[in-house]
């Protein structure tokens, strides 16, 4: 079918063309009160075309992958190319010299039987209830896995193929003590089913909810703050866009003009490693077919590079960093990191807490899609956590906001913990250790 698309494209006047095809299957299992109350499965596919027409790149896609769609695909791509008036040149890539092998497919996961998965997710819920009688309900208890395969093929001779599978599990529990209600959650992702331990996962969610019971607000003011690993990773993720060369070129990143300048404290090193062991965004080629590579984006506080795709690299007269993204066949080419993380430090979270006379440990940040401005760097986020007094956790804290500016915060990182943790994988897999920040403003009572 790909050849037929290219043939039709040539007849229409498209020059270089590329087809991106993906197919996949997925399963998800949801348990509520010992019952398998949700079961979903899917098999899906989609195909997109991009091609150069009259000097501009046009895109189109379809989920009806058969020959009846070819005419529309080609017509849409040509029409879309015609209205592009950006002068930045987007082009089809002929291929890198070599590609490192990345194995993101684990046969063992495909061999796990459905019965086993159902037993696992039921035991996860059961375990949560068993751990403490204050667990009033389990809001969500899910296991899911998926398999995906993508093919990229273009008229410049590039043909790349990639397949991967992944499993995930997520539990959210509600703890109740009188009128006091608190929630806790835990998740795991990866393609080794045996690494999912129901007891550990349930314990993590339950402990989190219980620890927050009895939480109160605190007095407003500036505090020494430790942002725990998972919350720090969430915050990092929300600001990932500032490292994109696209944002820089479009005047939408304050990192413009800051290359080789100090933008963060010495303690802050930020790495993009597409070949990281166990990385859930590991890949050998990016969304344009360019071989991926390891890079330090920030080294001991100094900004070393932006993240580039072919178009933005050409504009800046540099080589692409292999960070072109193609979220799915529905997306045009953008920019995204791969396994993207803050380098870990030496000491544990407990050791970091022990140094603080009076401060706050933030364990959860909320409203990350609304309470921050990635352009200005300003954030003001609802948060949960604990008050630290005399080097110890003294009590849980709720109904507070943590406010500051991300660019200022990077400069005020006093220490990074040894507890690097990654968030839920999306296009990128983003991680951070716990971060100690000199001063952030906390609003409460």
């Amino acid at each position, binding site marked *: 079918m790909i050849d037929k698309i290219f043939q039709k494209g040539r007849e229409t006047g498209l020059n270089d063309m590329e087809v991106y095809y993906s197919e996949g299957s997925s399963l998800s299992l949801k348990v*509520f009160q010992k019952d398998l*109350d*949700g*079961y*979903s*499965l*899917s*098999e*899906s*596919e*989609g195909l997109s075309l991009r091609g150069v027409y009259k000097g501009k790149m046009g*895109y*189109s*896609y379809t*989920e*009806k992958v058969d020959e009846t*769609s070819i005419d*529309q695909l080609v017509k*849409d791509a040509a*029409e*879309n190319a*015609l*209205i*592009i*008036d*950006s002068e930045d040149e987007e082009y089809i890539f002929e291929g890198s010299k070599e590609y490192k092998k990345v194995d993101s497919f684990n046969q063992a996961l495909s061999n796990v039987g459905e019965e086993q998965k159902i037993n696992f997710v039921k035991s996860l819920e059961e375990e949560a209830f068993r751990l403490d009688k204050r667990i009033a*309900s389990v*809001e969500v208890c899910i296991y899911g896995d998926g398999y995906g395969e993508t093919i990229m093929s273009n008229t410049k001779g590039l043909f790349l193929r990639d397949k991967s599978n992944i499993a995930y599990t997520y539990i959210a529990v*509600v703890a109740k003590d009188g009128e006091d209600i608190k*929630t806790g959650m835990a998740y795991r992702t990866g393609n080794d089913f045996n690494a999912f331990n129901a007891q550990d996962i349930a314990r993590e969610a339950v402990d989190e909810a219980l620890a927050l019971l009895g939480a109160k*607000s605190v007095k*407003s003011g500036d505090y020494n703050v430790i942002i725990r690993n998972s919350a720090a990773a969430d915050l990092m993720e929300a600001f990932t866009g500032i490292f994109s060369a696209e944002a820089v070129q*479009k*005047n*939408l990143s*304050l990192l413009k003009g800051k290359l080789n300048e100090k933008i963060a404290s010495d303690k802050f090193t930020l790495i993009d490693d597409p070949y990281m062991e166990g990385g859930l965004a590991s890949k050998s080629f990016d969304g344009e077919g360019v071989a991926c590579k390891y890079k330090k984006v920030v080294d001991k506080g100094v900004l070393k590079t932006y993240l580039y795709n072919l178009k933005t690299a050409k504009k800046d007269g540099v080589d692409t960093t292999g960070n072109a993204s193609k979220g799915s066949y*529905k997306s*045009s080419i953008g920019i995204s990191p791969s396994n993207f993380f803050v380098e870990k430090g030496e000491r544990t979270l407990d050791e970091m807490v022990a140094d603080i006379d009076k401060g706050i440990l933030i364990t959860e940040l*909320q*409203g990350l*899609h*609304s*309470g921050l401005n990635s*352009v*200005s760097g*300003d*954030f*003001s*986020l*609802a948060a949960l956590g604990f008050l630290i007094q005399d080097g110890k956790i003294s009590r849980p804290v*709720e*109904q*507070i*906001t*943590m*406010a500051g500016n991300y660019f200022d915060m990077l400069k005020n990182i006093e220490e990074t913990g040894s507890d690097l943790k990654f968030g839920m994988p999306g296009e990128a897999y983003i991680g951070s250790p716990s971060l100690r920040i000199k001063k952030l*403003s906390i*609003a*409460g*009572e």
Partner: protein
Amino acid sequence: MLNRKLIEDALTAALSIGGDFAEIFVEDRTNNGIVMIGGKVESTMSGRDYGAGIRIFKGFNSVYAYTNKTDRDTLIETAKKAAKAVEGNIIDHTINLIKTDVNNINTIQIDPSSVEKTRKVQVMKKAYDTAFNYDDLITQVSVNYTDYIQNIMVANSQGLWKEDTRVRSRLGISSVASKNGEMQSGFYAPGASKGYEFFENLDIDYYAREASRIAVTMVNAKYSPSGRMPVIIDNGFGGVIFHEACGHGLEATAVAKGLSVFAGKVGQQIASPLVTAIDDGSIPNEWGSYSIDDEGTPSQRNVLIENGILKGYMIDMLNARRMNMDITGSSRRQSYRFSPTSRMSNTFIDNGSSKPEEIIASTEKGLYAKNMGGGSVNPATGEFNFAVMEGYIIEKGKIKEPVRGATLIGKGTEVLNKIDMVGNNLLQGQGMCGSVSGSIPANVGQPMIRVSELTVGGREGE
């Protein structure tokens, strides 16, 4: 979209093991998106989403399967696979579909697919020019154009068989103002269940100027104070407070399993007597409106709260079973990839009697949230947070200097009781609402309201 025999056979296959209800949903949707940055069209994407989802109930449990292929073999095969997940005794089902016409509430005048793309770009250029030329401090403007035509078919084992077409259009304008190395942004994104006539009749200049005005005001603003204080939230998108703080907790998704703080409270006073709140998916041509929901039920006006008393929830077919209550035409999904569930449509606090100027004049000291950003809520605890895009200090009954970076936090149950003034200038705003069944268009709305006390998170002290 599919022939009657195939639908009946697929539904029969879905019930072949022991399910007591089966439904098939087919979607064929064309999307058009154009992005303009700095006055130049940067990217465009158009394409076709196509697929079918099969849902089976057995008591309170449900099974969902979807596929992109709707040929006979794939569909029957998918239905059988899904059926296998259901345990139980086979019930004899005779399926007899009766095709019913849908009463269309969203009249479309101009099919967006019939309009040249260059005309759509002209609309964007106009927005760009107005926004960019608003002030010298404006350094970047992005404009997003979206239109889509979603054809759906839904049929179920009770004989329901309906087809519908939903057309929506939206224009997003985002302005960035810069000053002394700092940047602030302003955003406006009107939308409607209309065709291309939406763009022709839209006051583009107004929205473009508003986006830029907010950015410029905020780049000149100081940081918001923090602490507990009275907060006045203006009409329109300010309704996001009710959406987050209360609306999600009234969706059967949260209520049926007892996970919402509002579960079991129908008939009880849950809000200040000044509050009447409504979810109405049947308002013609509104962004969150639909003729039938994704289970085939006509949309309707649902009174959620009347004078502070909880009247009802938003309920879908599956949760109706668990709750033993009637469905409310509220079952929605992003696409065939999602199993539908109870969601909001156009949700708003109804008009009260105060004049907006009275509300401001009677406030000694507090925050005036003129334009709101987004937010989120934890339905179990009722804790919400949302961002103030454009805020001002109020002193001695007067609106004073602008402040930036304020976030409002609180608990839904508390804030509902602390609404002490409700204005008479109801207005709707458009947003996308994300939840278990995906991201869907939804209106939020309210007149100006005052909350006697809320926690404001900012960077400055009191």
